[in-house]
């Protein structure tokens, strides 16, 4: 057990300063958008947030005296508890803004999904931090980690909070750092491209482009000409059969039929390959092709049949922003007006008219960045972005100097979750991403978000204070 003074000395105060500046900026802007000109009021949002900040400071001090070994030790229990809460919230939770993700206790509301990120980070660090863990070699280990990530993600998706679920994508980057193939990132990236293309291009055209891309990649991947010809023929057959269906049945082809045919062919191929004990790599590209085709199909299906009309519109408006500024595009449009009206230097503290008078929805939670943009201008927004970037880099830097794998994985999780939150949030407010309701870490009003992020950060800093130790 190290002495407390050593922990304090080893504590990374640079990160703490950046953190405090962000929290202070957040509070100022919450104050500005919820202050109504009367005297200070603790029941107003800025008052509540101030209470939460005090709570967080107490936590900070408490964590300093924690035994760092406790974090890996309790990670399984904590994860189990959070999963329990995520299930409970589905049963007895309170619905706010379309998602059933809140427990109401007195005048405070708690959102377990905010803590799920922390719990998942802990359990992943614990699992992947083991010395014998080899992600690329051991399929069982891979599946366990994937399961640990997808379980809370799935439960949060069930709550109707797609934004918070999306954040779990951060773990792919963490696993990438821990040995996951670069191809997984490419797969993810291509999937995002396919998703965007869905809104601009004809479905059949996307299929054709995917097929050609698959051919090129396959050739490059295997370097085996025979394999390429085989894959190429396979694709030709699939497309021909599909075209034949269109021609002979003179009917609008059902995309699901196409998928089923593709699945049959590819399964057959995989089975033959398996019997011949040939290299597994040869079937990767056709499988991926199938994956993307299915994702286009499922995007279409989800978009048309599952998403509620307002959700459809939220996505559509991203790609056609000028379509209807008073309807669906309203939030994004108002948010841009607010930020844009700030100009270079901003209108000044408490001078924002757009955010103060409710033109921007959620101006102190998800759209807090609008208040920054309006009142502090380009100077303010750039400062906030630089602060976030600095914070993330600092955390990555700290993570890399850890002796313990547990601490490193945990640090990477922290950095990437902050990154995903901040980038999705800001992209949304400036119209670069669809309206996905997730808070801006440290700035947005909301106790759950502030406490969970602070806890996340402090646990990591506490681990970093004993960076020469090994945990797990």
């Amino acid at each position, binding site marked *: 057990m190290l002495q407390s003074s050593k922990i304090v000395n080893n504590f990374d105060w640079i990160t703490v300063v950046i953190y405090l500046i962000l929290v202070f900026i957040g509070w100022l802007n919450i104050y500005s958008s919820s202050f109504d000109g009367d005297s200070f009021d603790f029941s107003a949002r800025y008052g509540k947030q101030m209470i939460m900040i005090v709570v967080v400071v107490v936590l900070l001090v408490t964590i300093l005296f924690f035994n760092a070994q406790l974090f890996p030790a309790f990670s399984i229990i904590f994860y189990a508890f959070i999963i329990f809460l995520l299930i409970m919230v589905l049963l007895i939770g309170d619905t706010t803004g379309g998602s059933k993700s809140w427990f109401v206790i007195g005048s405070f509301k708690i959102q377990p999904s905010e803590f799920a990120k922390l719990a998942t980070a802990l359990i992943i660090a614990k699992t992947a931090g083991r010395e014998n863990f080899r992600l690329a070699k051991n399929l069982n280990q891979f599946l366990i980690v994937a399961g640990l990530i997808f379980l809370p993600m799935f439960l949060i998706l069930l709550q109707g909070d797609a934004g918070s679920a999306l954040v779990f994508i951060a773990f792919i980057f963490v696993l990438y750092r821990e040995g996951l193939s670069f191809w997984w990132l490419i797969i993810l990236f291509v999937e995002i491209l396919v998703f965007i293309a869905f809104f601009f291009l004809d479905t059949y055209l996307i299929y054709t482009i995917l097929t050609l891309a698959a051919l090129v990649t396959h050739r490059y991947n295997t370097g085996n000409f025979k394999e390429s010809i085989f894959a190429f023929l396979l694709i030709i057959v699939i497309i021909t059969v599909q075209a034949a269906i269109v021609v002979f049945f003179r009917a609008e082809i059902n995309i699901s039929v196409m998928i089923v045919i593709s699945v049959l062919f590819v399964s057959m191929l995989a089975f033959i390959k398996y019997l011949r004990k040939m290299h597994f790599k040869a079937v990767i590209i056709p499988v991926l092709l199938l994956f993307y085709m299915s994702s286009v199909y499922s995007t279409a299906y989800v978009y048309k049949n599952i998403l509620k009309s307002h959700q459809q519109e939220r996505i559509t408006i991203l790609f056609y922003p000028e379509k209807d500024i008073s309807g669906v595009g309203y939030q994004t449009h108002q948010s841009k007006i607010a930020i*844009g009206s700030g100009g270079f230097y901003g209108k000044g503290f408490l001078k924002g008219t757009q955010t103060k008078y409710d033109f921007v929805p959620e101006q102190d939670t998800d759209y807090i960045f609008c208040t920054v943009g309006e009142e502090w201008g380009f100077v303010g927004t750039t400062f906030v972005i630089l602060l976030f970037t600095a914070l993330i880099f600092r955390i990555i830097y700290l993570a890399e100097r850890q002796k313990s794998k547990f601490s490193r994985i945990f640090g990477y999780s922290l950095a990437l979750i902050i990154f995903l939150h901040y980038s999705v949030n800001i992209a949304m407010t400036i119209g670069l991403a669809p309206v996905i309701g997730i808070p801006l870490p440290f700035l947005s009003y909301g106790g759950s978000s502030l406490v969970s992020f602070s806890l996340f950060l402090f646990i990591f800093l506490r681990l970093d204070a004993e960076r020469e130790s090994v945990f797990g």
Partner: protein
Amino acid sequence: MKSKFLIISLLFTITAIIFIAKLFFIQVVETKYKLSADNNTLRFVTQYPTRGKIFDRNDKILVSNKVYFDLKVVPKSLSEFDTTALCRLLKTNIDEFKKTINEEKQSYRPITIKKQIDDKEFALIEEQLYKFPGFYFEKRTIREYQQLIASHVLGYIAEVNPEELKNDNYYEIGDFIGKSGIERKYETQLRGKKGVNILIVDVLGREQGSYRNGKYDENALAGLDLTTTIDADLQAYGEKLLTGKIGSIVAIEPSTGELLAIISGPTYSPDLFIGKNLSENYKMIEQSKGKPLINRALTSLYPPGSTFKLINGLIGLQKEVITTQTVFVTNGYDAGNHIVKDHISGSVDFQNAIQHSSNAYYCHVFKRIISDPKFTNYADAYEDWKMYVESFGLGVHLNSDLDNEKKGILYPASYFDRYYGKARWNYNTVISLAIGQGELGFTPLQIANMTAVIANRGYYITPHVIKKIQNNKINKQFIEKKYSKVSEEHFKPVIEAMEKVVSQGTGYSAYTPGIDICGKTGTVQNPHGADHSVFVAFAPKNNPKIAISVYIENAGFGSTWAAPIAGLMIEKYLNDTTSKPWVEKQIIETDLINQTYK
């Protein structure tokens, strides 16, 4: 592991650069968001000033204001609301309402949903208005008339037309502007100055308070009150006497040039031209019998008839072509190609000529004026005569403060040169000018002013209708005396004769016991129908208080209708009573419009 760290770092860096670039574009480069923000948050509510009130000469109120409200909305700020309920509340047609809203759907500029809501309806609507966020009231005022008189003089206000909007950028669509009369002539004084309240409104159009604590607000400045020279009682009485007649009465206080009454018949009620039914009523009045819209007192040109003999007499005396002792044998006047007939014959002197309105006598006088040997030719003599006539305010712009005042007809010699050929005309050619017929046309105002010159023994003060603007003194031009070219001593015999006209001459029907009225009858030949009846008069003979001209169209001799009306008017003004109620009754009940016009 180094490369993986770099790839992840690259992701962070590129993201930050994209964000900063996009923010630079939104916040610094693009200006449209800044403009949208102002439209979004600021509502400019015009503060309409109260229009100046108008009083009569005795501080009786003629025109004041009453409050009403316009219901407005900024279409862009509208959210969902119950259209049917609102239309029921406003009692408006739902289809029209939807049309109005839809036309301007994208507009940030307020549109008026319902105009001129009175206080009763206002209370009803206001109570329910909270259900319809975005709708708000704008307070306006409308004219209110205490007495339904003097519509021609006062004029009316109505919404500005596109041309007026273009000419003066003070006005905005829906603003009111004086369209005629005092309302038009004194528009800038009456209108005051609009103010503006800048309010911050939220997304639902709810007011959140004033912008920068009202730093940029401007208060409306109320319009100035005007005190007119009109005597409301006399004006009302004159209008009553003129009931059923086409014509005009103009009364002036000679010593000041103040117009006591300006009446044009037929008239209409001024309150027809306020409020929602203005255009409907305007059409109705425009088309009704006797053309009530015409302000005959200022715009109708009549030959002066025999009243002009006074002027020719005075000019004759001044030019010394005659004296008060000059006698002509009158048995008609031989004008060469025709005889000017006369109703008296024998030897007539200056006084008798006026008293009995001899035509031949004035033909002789006019002949002497035009053939005055002082001038080398008739044209020069005529021009000189014309200058004398103009010095009485005839055939020239009086430059009064009345709206649309006409100059009248008094041709220069060159006109006759052109018409007959140079030096191809003489006094006989234009002999009808001797008796106020022919190529002459003056407004009743000019004739009343001419009478004032006689009453003043040689001068007039430019007639005017406004005495005081709030507390400011009126223009100097309405104090200055303007002298005629006839000197004071020549007026005495003319006035003596005018007194006889009333006491024992052609104007006896104006005679009023106890008041020494001096007058002169006239009959204006009317080629289109029955002659017009004219009478001019002033009273009392010494220190005259009132000078008056009365024109009654198609009423025959001046003594028939014009003279008794003048008598009643003078008595009303001086004594505030009438000694001849039966005459009054008969006059009021006579409907010449329906008798003479079929």
